[in-house]
């Protein structure tokens, strides 16, 4: 088997080397296809990864809130669940303090998941009052040491540090723009009143950058102080969860919700509309890019087809010598494969160069220098290579079948 394969490869190689120009055209066709596939998909996948990362990082992977997706089952129904057919009408629901009740236990449960961190918080509305001006503020009470590991809010600080909340009595971090409106700066004191009547003096210990969603109208405080300001001691109404694997968020959220009843929303659920858009975008990209690769394989088809036509006489003589039809088809399919392989390598090189050029471009967005997000993973290289190889083999196999129709008798008798 092996010497035969070597002989067939030798013949295929000679055919390609004799027709250098056609070989070069076919190889460059594949190379351009592969190169642009890599450049385009690097941008598309890169921007998508970047976008999804922003989505994932913008907030905790799972947010457990004190909301319920359905009303609590009636006590009677719960008690006689097995018998069924029990329903009470006109009963009065007992007023309960809002908030997540068994949150300590939930925290322990989440922390038991490897790599998962749960950050409890309490949010509520307060009014900041300064010199007769009122400004609404959504207060979020957090544990700074945990929160900094769950979300990226510390990256969005213009000045100050999250940990300063623990050092300063009544410390608060608010948005830069809001502070400007009130004429407040670092270290200034402002009084805040909650709906339940508590009033406290807050001291600005940090400012969020302008234009960040997280910082507008929102103030971060220590959880303990927020509980006391909002008049809801020991209660929280939100648990942010960060997972080692963001893509497991849906499963973990479903599990938490099933067990505790509180609404646990994964980032996928929050961003379902964006993720849907990405699917469409991917379909478009792969359609366009497959078309590029397909067109590239036309070059292989032409090259192999011409080679078969030119070599009819040689095909006939080799048949008379005792080469089988399979041998001759293999020769021409291998020619196509060789063109595809050479094209893939040249295309990888081209793609690499294109990506380097794209990666070196600088874009200025709001004064910050940005680079195109590019995905340079080997996965793209492998996809491009395998798609080109398959297209190349098919493109070579179609004309290679023509060898079977070469009738040696006709050619050997009538030849020159």
């Amino acid at each position, binding site marked *: 088997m092996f010497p035969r394969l070597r002989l067939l490869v030798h013949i295929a190689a000679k055919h390609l080397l004799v027709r250098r120009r056609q070989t070069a055209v076919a190889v460059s066709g594949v190379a351009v296809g592969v190169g642009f596939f890599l450049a385009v998909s690097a941008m598309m996948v890169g921007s998508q990864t970047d976008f999804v990362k922003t989505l994932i990082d913008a907030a905790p992977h799972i947010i457990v809130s004190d909301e319920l997706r359905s009303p609590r089952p009636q006590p009677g129904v719960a008690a006689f669940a097995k018998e069924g057919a029990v329903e009470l009408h006109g009963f009065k629901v007992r007023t309960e303090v809002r908030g997540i009740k068994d949150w300590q236990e939930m925290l322990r449960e989440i922390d038991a998941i490897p790599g998962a961190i749960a950050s409890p918080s309490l949010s509520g509305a307060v009014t900041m009052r300064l010199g007769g001006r009122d400004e609404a503020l959504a207060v979020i009470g957090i544990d700074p040491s945990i929160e900094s590991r769950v979300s990226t809010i510390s990256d969005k600080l213009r000045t100050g540090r999250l940990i300063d909340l623990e050092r300063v009595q009544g410390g608060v971090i608010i948005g830069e723009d809001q502070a400007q409106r009130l004429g407040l700066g670092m270290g200034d004191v402002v009084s805040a009143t909650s709906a339940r009547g508590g009033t406290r003096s807050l001291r600005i210990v940090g400012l969020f950058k302008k234009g960040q969603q997280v910082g507008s109208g929102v103030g971060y405080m220590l959880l303990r102080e927020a509980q006391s300001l909002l008049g809801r001691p020991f209660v929280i109404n939100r648990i942010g969860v960060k997972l080692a694997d963001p893509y497991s968020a849906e499963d973990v959220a479903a599990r938490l919700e099933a067990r505790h009843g509180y609404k646990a929303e994964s980032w996928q659920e929050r961003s379902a509309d964006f993720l849907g858009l990405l699917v469409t975008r991917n379909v478009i990209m792969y359609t366009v890019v497959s078309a590029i690769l397909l067109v590239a394989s036309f070059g292989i088809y032409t090259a192999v087809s011409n080679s078969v036509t030119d070599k009819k006489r040689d095909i006939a003589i080799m048949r008379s010598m005792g080469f089988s039809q399979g041998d001759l088809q293999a020769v021409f399919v291998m020619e196509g494969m060789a063109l595809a392989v050479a094209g893939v390598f040249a295309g990888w090189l081209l793609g690499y160069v294109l990506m380097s050029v794209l990666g070196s471009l600088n874009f200025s967005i709001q004064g910050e220098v940005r680079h195109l997000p590019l995905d340079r993973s080997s996965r793209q290289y492998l996809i491009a290579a395998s798609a080109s190889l398959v297209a190349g083999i098919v493109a070579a196999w179609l004309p290679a079948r023509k060898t079977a129709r070469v009738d040696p008798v006709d050619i*050997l008798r009538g030849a020159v």
Partner: protein
Amino acid sequence: MSAPVLVAEGLTRELPGDPPVTLVAGADLAIEPGKFTAIVGPSGCGKSSLLYLLGLIDRPTAGRLLLEGRDVSPLSGDERARIRLERFGFVFQFHFLLPEFNALENVMMPIRRLGRLSLAQAEARARELLGFMGLAGKAEKSPDKLSGGERQRVAIARALANDPLLVLGDEPTGNLDSVNSARVVDLFRSLAHEQGRAVVCVTHDPGIAEVADIRVSMLDGRISEVRRQG
């Protein structure tokens, strides 16, 4: 008379059509080892068609072909290719060397395809054959650098590459001058007489027909006469 290597019984080849065209009609023939058989006849009498049937390149529409007693007409294309590779060697009017390969590589081609010898052994065998053809110094030459007579001798060396039982020639001297023709004819005779192969040649050349051991005359697709000479 030794046992024939190849026996045709009622070998017929028709081209489909209305009415069908008969190329060879009911040919009965025995090809013997150690004998030089010439098939002669006017153009279009079906002598080349008969040769391609005998050489398993074409398939008969009727009749049987026995290779050493075994009916080879029903075999598959691949099996017939295998027989051609192992047992037959062809020489055509045109040399039909593969233009991308030099003389040595052309001769090595069937040996490598058969795959029984290592590359080094195949090369040694091909050089030996080229030497036998008086072409030892031209092994690395590409076919277009060789004269017509040299090319044809390379083609003969290629036909002998796998030590065939049967050598078939279709007007092997048709394109050669008289000196080279005589050389090829001598070669064919020695292949039969000294090496014991069965040699079959289709020819117009009266010189070849004269020296053949068996002269098969054809007319209108039929064998009209089989004459033993010498």
